[in-house]
């Protein structure tokens, strides 16, 4: 090997020709001695910026873009624990809010009585309001929020598109067709089933179209989703235009904008179970999503079977979204905004992003729904309006901050 000659020829160039006013001898990056010396003096943790910044290869100072190790892990863990506590407290507090005055102590007593502790001492009506009306609704809101945020994060990773959300594969518009049909024929009790069938039909159409176009690449998946969404959206509009009047029109509108007003225990339990059964494996395989960061080829060379993983992940999120959308209607912005907000705090690693997003989504939708049902009491707002009104400005703020951060 003969590069020694080149190196000696290069040395004067490096020290003399810099001209950018960099002070001190240029020793970095030269052989193992220099490296170990640096590692020994500089260490790895905080405060290395000063020592290394002055001699960077590109001559730019780079203190601002440093992220100290451990900070992200600590933040993720801390934020996760805080959110668990906030979620538990939110459930208790949100149940007390509403026309009937109920205290947190009442809530705990009622729950305690169900779990076998001493009798609550509440009137049957108070107990019924807590246990049969508000509790299932709060639980459903938390489950739907957690599921949507989780699915949004997974969609954004598998399609490598920051604008992806859980409805990307045409799910919400497919569910809408099903729901509108159910409402128009007056079979309200069939609405969840019809919405779920509509969502799955849209999913199959999208994946089939993408596969037909040559495979499940991010771009094809998104384009196929757009095509299916437009078609289903037009179909929904057509149905409403021809048929809907009066009450059914109002019902349809409320469903299309997302509402949890019909949530009962069946919804709460189904939603929670679905989020756990599908969400836990997703969180366990979060590392696979990290591998998508540099594209499909890089993921393959890291040992990831890209096509299979993308199929499985998209199918899992689609089924979960289909279940949630069938009970809540299309609630926007939660799946889009929450993962981005979480990334800004805990960093881009999906092992942290997925669980923290789920917790954040649960807390967010729980409070958005509480606001929706109490703000204009006795009238109820569709919760989708609340999430959009809250979500859009927050999203704009995040975008602006991100630009300022120059990341």
């Amino acid at each position, binding site marked *: 090997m*003969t590069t020694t000659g080149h190196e*000696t020829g290069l040395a004067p160039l490096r020290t003399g020709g810099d001209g950018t006013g960099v002070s001190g001898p240029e020793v970095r990056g030269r052989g193992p001695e220099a490296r170990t010396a640096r*590692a020994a003096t500089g260490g790895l943790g905080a405060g290395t910026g000063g020592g290394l910044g002055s001699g960077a290869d590109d001559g730019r100072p780079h203190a601002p873009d*440093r992220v100290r*190790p451990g900070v992200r892990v600590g933040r993720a863990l801390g934020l996760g624990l805080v959110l668990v506590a906030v979620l538990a407290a939110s459930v208790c507090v949100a149940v007390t809010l509403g026309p009937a005055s109920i205290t947190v102590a009442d809530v705990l007593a009622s729950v305690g009585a169900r779990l076998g502790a001493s009798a609550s001492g509440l009137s049957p009506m108070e107990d019924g309001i807590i246990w049969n009306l508000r509790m299932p609704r709060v639980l459903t809101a938390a489950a739907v929020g957690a599921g949507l945020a989780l699915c949004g994060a997974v969609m954004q990773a598998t399609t490598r598109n920051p604008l992806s959300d859980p409805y990307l594969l045409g799910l919400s518009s497919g569910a809408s067709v099903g729901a509108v049909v159910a409402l128009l024929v007056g079979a309200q009790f069939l609405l969840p089933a019809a919405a779920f069938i509509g969502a799955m039909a849209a999913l199959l159409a999208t994946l089939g179209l993408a596969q037909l176009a040559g495979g499940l690449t991010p771009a094809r998946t998104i384009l196929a989703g757009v095509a299916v969404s437009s078609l289903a959206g037009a179909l929904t509009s057509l149905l409403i235009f021809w048929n809907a009047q009066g009450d059914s029109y109002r019902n349809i509108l409320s469903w299309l904008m997302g509402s949890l007003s019909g949530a009962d225990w069946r919804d709460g339990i189904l939603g929670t179970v679905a989020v756990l059964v599908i969400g836990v494996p997703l969180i366990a395989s979060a590392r696979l999503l990290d591998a998508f960061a*540099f594209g499909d080829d890089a993921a393959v*060379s*890291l*040992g990831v079977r890209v096509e299979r993983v993308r199929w499985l992940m998209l199918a899992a999120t689609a089924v979960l979204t289909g279940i949630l959308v069938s009970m809540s209607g299309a609630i926007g912005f939660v799946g889009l905004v929450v993962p981005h907000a979480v990334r800004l705090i805990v960093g881009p690693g999906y*092992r942290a992003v997925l669980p923290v997003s789920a917790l954040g989504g649960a807390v967010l939708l729980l409070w958005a729904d509480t606001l929706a049902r109490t703000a204009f009491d006795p009238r109820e707002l569709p919760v989708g309006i609340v999430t959009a009104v809250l979500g859009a400005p927050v999203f704009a703020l995040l975008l602006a901050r991100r630009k300022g951060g120059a990341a």
Partner: protein
Amino acid sequence: MSLVLEGVSVDLGGTRIVDGVSAALPRGTVTGIIGPNGAGKSTLLRALAGLVPVSAGAIGWEDTDLLRLSVRQRARLLALIEQSAHTSEPLTVREVVELGRMPHQRALRFGGASAEDAARVEDAMSTAGCLDLAERRYTTLSGGQQQRVGLARALAQEPQLLLLDEPTNHLDPHAQLRTLRLMRRLANDGLTLIAALHDLTHAAAVCDTVLVLRDGRLHAAGDPDSVLTPDTIREVYGVEADVLRHPRSLAPVFALSLPEEAWTAGPAADSVAADGLGGGAAGIPREPQDSRSAGSTSSPNAVMELRGSAAT
């Protein structure tokens, strides 16, 4: 012999890109794949990495059939460093290098990297020379720095085979030489390296074996001195080559020119450069001047002519 290619062919979209390449590459050596654009260099590397299917032939590594390995087994055996790796995620360098540990981690699991993973990541960054960048954001790095991070990520995979697609492309001279030196050192440590290279001087400096591809076929193979001859270079690239020697290291240096260019004007180009008429306005004729010695005589008229053409 460690890596054996037997009649390896790759078809993409109905076109044969790589056609019956056979070679045997010993462990602990650097092999350069050279050839003009479209000769199939990158495709051959991608076939080895399992990114494109091999349509015919066999690839063996020691006793294993490379083509029968699962994606994950292959990722433990070999790593590919592509020309440039882009991401929009604000990952730190350490997080990028940690990705290299994935083939060794269970797919379904909770929790972070193990102590062993952390140690391997640290080693890989230290070897590739990017330990000081560990907490920087990958997206803010220069091309040369990103390339070192890519190397570190590949090393974190603990591969036995390292595939590099034009590793010196887009790099400044310092980063180029640094990359070549590291490649040499890794081979001395027992790794087997295969690199697609454009720069013949680099290939001659770093490679034990050179495979010359032309239209997907193996045109010549062997050690650089016997393969990188003016005849072969003319046949493959259609350029005239003068093989010079580096004044201190005595490594071969290739001075290239287009056959129809009347390089009688060559000496003039040297004086032009000495006069400081840089800037590449002269286009192609500037290329060979790097390696030509400055001692040649020049005619003032030729200088005037070249200046005139450069100004227009």
